[in-house]
């Protein structure tokens, strides 16, 4: 009995120590309950140096919480019990959140610097007139290839992927909307089609690609491509940038016939409380120098036109990540198609994955 009691006391003492240590650390980060802004963001998706700079300038401390999927974020905000002031959902999710009445409209009188946002990226179908969202980062779906294994001219378009030369040499990202969308674009349809016959056609087209497909993988695609496991992969620009940092033989192409354009956007969820801090932060992040610094840290493309001008020339003129306007005009954004239609997309994609070559 004595042993148990002393054991328990030792644990309690250790707990007290941990609690003191943790609260000290929190204080050292400058936490104070009154002026705290809670940002619900993807992991490692903002430059921490900007957060300290923001705190120095305005006195508001930013607390970052992270999520790993739009759906998880949606559930937590819908369920309540949290006090997120800002969140960073992707395009189709904004539509879904809007339908679920989870968003607070932006007050443009308090928002300064929105004019820095490139008109190309304003007024998108998921949020007409940007009533709810400020674009944060954007990117594309494209083809990444290894110049040691395949010539650049051989993989400029989606249809090139069906070439018999690429037998068993393509990796696809495991994402129903993206891969179905790729097949739809190849056949000249919209990536948001709700025509089941077109989807069936797209599936048949994809089944023809099967002999070339080496694997349908998720995050591992980055590692495989960096290790020369396959000549070509279909993935997002953000992932591509990371692969290219690890292997100088990799290059990224956005097919000129069209592709997906995706956005991550700052929105104010219903759970928001600290409006002064929210607008201070939005205005801070819209400032060109801050947006540029953030883009350099994260490595994604910024929709902030003035910030892009501040980026190093080599980055800002890189056609791989900042494609020309004529390409951008052909890019399509995913719309929220409702649960039933998303189910059909997923089923068709699954049928393709199960197809026996």
């Amino acid at each position, binding site marked *: 009995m004595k042993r148990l009691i002393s054991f328990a006391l030792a644990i309690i003492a*250790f707990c007290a120590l941990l609690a003191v240590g*943790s609260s000290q*650390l929190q204080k050292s980060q400058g936490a104070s309950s009154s002026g705290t802004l809670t940002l619900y963001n993807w*992991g490692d*998706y903002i430059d921490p140096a900007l957060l300290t700079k923001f705190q120095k300038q305005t006195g508001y401390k930013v607390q970052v919480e992270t999520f790993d999927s739009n759906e998880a974020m949606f559930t937590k905000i819908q369920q*309540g*019990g949290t006090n997120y002031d800002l969140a960073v959902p992707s395009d189709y999710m904004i539509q879904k959140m809007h339908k679920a009445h989870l968003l607070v409209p932006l007050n443009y009188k308090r928002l300064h610097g929105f004019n820095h946002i490139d008109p190309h990226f304003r007024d998108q179908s998921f949020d007409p007139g940007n009533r709810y969202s400020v674009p944060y980062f954007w990117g594309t779906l494209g083809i990444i290839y290894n110049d040691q294994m395949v010539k650049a001219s051989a993989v400029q378009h989606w249809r090139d992927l069906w070439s018999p030369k690429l037998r068993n040499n393509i990796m696809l990202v495991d994402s129903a909307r993206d891969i179905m969308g790729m097949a739809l674009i190849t056949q000249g349809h919209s990536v948001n089609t709700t025509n089941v016959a077109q989807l069936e056609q797209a599936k048949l087209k994809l089944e023809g690609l099967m002999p070339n497909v080496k694997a349908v993988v998720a995050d591992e695609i980055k*590692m495989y491509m960096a290790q020369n496991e396959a000549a070509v992969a279909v993935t997002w620009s953000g992932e591509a940038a990371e692969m290219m940092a690890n292997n100088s033989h990799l290059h990224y192409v956005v097919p000129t016939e069209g592709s997906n354009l995706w956005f991550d956007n700052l929105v104010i969820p219903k759970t928001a409380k600290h409006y002064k801090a929210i607008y201070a932060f939005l205005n801070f992040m819209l400032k060109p120098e801050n947006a540029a610094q953030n883009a350099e840290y994260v490595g994604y493309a910024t929709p902030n036109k003035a910030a892009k001008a501040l980026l190093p020339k080599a980055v800002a003129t890189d056609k791989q990540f900042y494609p020309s306007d004529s390409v951008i005009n052909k890019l399509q954004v995913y719309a929220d198609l409702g649960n039933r239609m998303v189910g059909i997309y997923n089923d068709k994609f699954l049928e393709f994955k199960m197809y026996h070559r």
Partner: protein
Amino acid sequence: MKRKWYDWRNVYLWLVFLLLYAPIFYLIFYSFNAGTTMTHFTGFSWQHYAELFADTRMIEIVLDTLLIALLSSLLATIIGTLGALAIYGIKKVWLKNSILSLNNILMVSPDVIIGASFLIFFTFLGLRLGFSSVLLSHIAFSIPIVVLMVLPKLSEMNHSLIDAATDLGATNLQVLTRVVFPFITPGILTGFFMAFTYSLDDFAVTFFVTGNGFETLSVEIYARARQGISLEVNALSALMFLFSLLLIGGYYFIEQYNSSKKERRRNRMEAKLIK
């Protein structure tokens, strides 16, 4: 028959250990990488450890995670031990079995479902998500584990021990503290450590009930993994591995010391008796 050094049983044992530990050592090895990926080892450096110690948010999360694990397993051990005593005391067989089944259902039901139901329950109660919600849910899912660890020890105990103690005039409290608890102490400690490890590496339940700036290690690492796991996480894993190694080693030596002390005492007593 003399055993050969490469006895196949030993070879098998070492092979299994190798398979179990190889990924951990692989991870630790790359925590010293001067590069930033786990694919090429470009040279030795401490830089990821330096990054880790400069990352106050990460350190804070580590402290919080340990705090939650220790506190929740301590409370769960107290509640679970008392619960096991109560179940042990039930005389009706059907009641005992149904309570045990209810306990086991909590053990086998998927974490995701437990987590989601906690989230719905806490928000229904209007509880703010954060430290307290994580602590409560960890206590809740640890209790069945403790019960399962303590109950066999109780059944193992010879009931005549209790009868003898009451016969000699011990009160109920004395029976509990002098007879029952010393006997089931190993079970209680095992229960505590099981609960501790469960709490430390739980992801699914914790993910649902964290919020308002409070996070645990598993949730944070999972969220960071979106951008590819930085080697800072490797450095942290190496330190955690070292920490658990020290903990286990320390526990082993304390046990060793205690049992040898008991042994000595018994020897002395026997020596006295012989005289």
